[in-house]
């Protein structure tokens, strides 16, 4: 069975996996050929070959480590998962057998439920809900973090900034699960907020913050505040104070200064922060699982269920891949919208 995996015999169900495994090697071989060709045609006096520069032992060691990482820990698993998503769900015995053929049925299942052949409204709803909420949380975090980032980057003294920085980082040393837990405590029926509200006479019965998803929103926002802060802070910090001074001198009101000077300059930072927060929010498990109400449908949680409850790995993979595709599309749109290049956004 093992040999069948690696020596494609023209049967589709085998060659798809083998092809995927070969693909990265082909790419590497292509680059290697290009490099040799270029080295041969142009003489570069400073060129020392890779083996000369590192010696045999180190040279082999570096290549092995990097190959292990890029091929076996990054590329091959992803590609393999994608391939898996194009296969039907089969018990272990039947895999690689004649019933293991390429199919789009897992992807279709998001749209048309395989059980009752109707529109898969629950999952579709969950998908869009996840995207919408993640976008909203991204925007919310941007609004929350921007004033503070601006203050820290431009207006604060060095001492204040150091203290604030410390204050920002400390909460993040607490594990995200414990943080979600702490929010739950705060917002629960017997939690402090409800106690306070009832004590002050503003409400009669405890507000179900967790049931109506407020908890989840707070949790998602809270978990990603720092992720938004840092790129924003870095971007605004590099802005020359003099520009702001000049604008102020020319009589611009504060909101115009922000709109016309600070925000355009900080665009890469904004794009970077938004990208990361969106991707982390869409892919997060902890906040929706622990803080969402019983009716919450979070797409990532559905993927989780496919794996641990239904043991339907191909379908889970398909959904995961769709999630990834959605994230990437969103990011691309954001970058296009803000007219920022990919290289700038990745810090």
């Amino acid at each position, binding site marked *: 069975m093992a040999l069948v995996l690696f020596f494609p015999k023209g049967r589709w169900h085998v060659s798809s996996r083998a092809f995927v495994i070969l693909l990265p090697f082909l790419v590497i071989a292509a680059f290697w050929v290009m490099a040799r060709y270029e080295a041969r045609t*142009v003489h570069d*006096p*400073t060129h020392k070959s890779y083996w*000369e520069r590192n010696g045999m032992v180190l040279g082999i060691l570096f290549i092995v480590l990097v190959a292990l990482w890029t091929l076996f820990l990054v590329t091959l698993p992803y590609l393999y998962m994608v391939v898996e998503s194009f296969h039907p769900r089969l018990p272990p015995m039947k895999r690689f057998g004649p019933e293991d053929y390429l199919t789009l049925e897992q992807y279709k299942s998001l749209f048309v439920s395989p059980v009752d052949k109707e529109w898969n409204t629950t999952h579709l709803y969950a998908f869009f809900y996840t995207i919408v909420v993640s976008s909203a949380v991204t925007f919310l975090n941007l609004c929350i973090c921007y004033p503070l980032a601006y203050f820290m980057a431009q207006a604060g003294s060095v001492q204040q900034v150091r203290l604030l920085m410390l204050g920002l980082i400390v909460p993040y040393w607490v594990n995200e699960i414990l943080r979600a837990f702490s929010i739950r405590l705060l917002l629960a029926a017997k939690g402090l907020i409800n106690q306070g509200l009832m004590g002050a006479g503003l409400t009669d019965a405890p507000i179900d913050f967790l049931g109506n998803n407020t908890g989840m929103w707070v949790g998602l926002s809270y978990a990603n505040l720092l992720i938004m802060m840092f790129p924003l802070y870095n971007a605004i910090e590099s802005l020359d104070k003099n520009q702001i001074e000049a604008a102020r001198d020319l009589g611009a009101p504060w909101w115009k200064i922000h709109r016309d000077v600070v925000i355009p300059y900080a665009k890469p930072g904004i794009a970077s922060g938004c990208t990361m927060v969106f991707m982390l929010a869409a892919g997060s498990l902890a906040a929706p699982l622990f803080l969402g109400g019983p009716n919450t449908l979070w797409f990532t949680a559905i993927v989780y269920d496919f794996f641990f409850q239904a043991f339907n790995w191909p379908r889970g993979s398909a959904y995961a891949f769709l999630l990834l595709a959605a994230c990437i599309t969103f990011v691309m749109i954001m970058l296009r919208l803000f007219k920022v290049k990919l290289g700038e956004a990745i810090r």
Partner: protein
Amino acid sequence: MSAGVDLDGVTVRFGNFTAVNNANLAIKGGEFFSFLGPSGCGKTTILRTVSGFLDPSAGKVRIAGQDMAGIGPNKRPTALIFQNLALFPLMTVAENIAYGLRVRGIDRVTRRKKAEELLDLIALPGQGDKLVSELSGGQKQRVAIARALAVEPQVLLLDEPLSALDLKLRQHMRNELRLIQQRVGITFIYITHDQGEALTMSDRIAVMSDGVIEQVADGKTVYDKPETAFVASFVGENNPFPGRVSKASADEAVVDTAFGKLKGRNPSGLKTGDKAILFVRPESFKLGKGAEGTTLESPVKNVAFEGNMTHVFLKGAGKKDITLTVGRHGSSKVPDQGEKATVHYTDGLGLVLPEGKMARE
């Protein structure tokens, strides 16, 4: 033990740019040899090619007669002193000096002893345990030299080592380096853009410009008998008088210039009608009308007193002034600014050379 270095038609190209163009040179073992030229002339490139960090695009580098092609910098019998010294900041002074011995597998005790000896030589006795960041510029310089000497190279290569030091220290170090070289007997290959250094320290100098070696000779020859316009204008101050040869013989030539017919020596064998430049050094001019030799006149633009000599600037033909230097206790009276001055020089002190590119101001 010292070795000679031979460059056989060495050319070094970076893409379309030729940094060194067909260098042919034989440096004798045990001599103090300098490459002199403005920045970008290729002298650093030659140094790095000899030490093994660059491969020549054409030609061969030979050290002690052996072809160095394919031999890396760590296997060549050379040691390089970098312009920014490149001392190891995380090692102590003694560890820096002994590093070459360490990689040769010499044991700790012997290494330490050798390092102490060298520390004595460079006048930093007992300071082996300091870190490099605690030293002054001059001290770091000396540690770099000691580090290179520790591996007993056959050729020592120095890349403008004195440029970071201040004037007085620089002048002193010139003498010290020369003395070390004579004592140790190693071949020194020294590159610099400072002609004072090159002239005072070297046995022979190679003057370079734009990748080409213009002339190789000892200091006096390069100064008194430059072979090209570039060498004449780069080494020391010189007054160029461009024009055309109107009369020529085996030893002498007369050049028609903006200041009339000027006479000078003709070692290049120029013929009548050739484009030429007559060069006269500032110190070759004397004030007043001479009994013999060539005379010319020009109004004085400026007079600058500089202690042991006075510079007089006369209006030249183009943008460049004619300069002459008068010693402090010279016989003639120095003219004032605005006056018309008459100066003369003996014909033997004028030099006629083929027209060519001169050193940039």
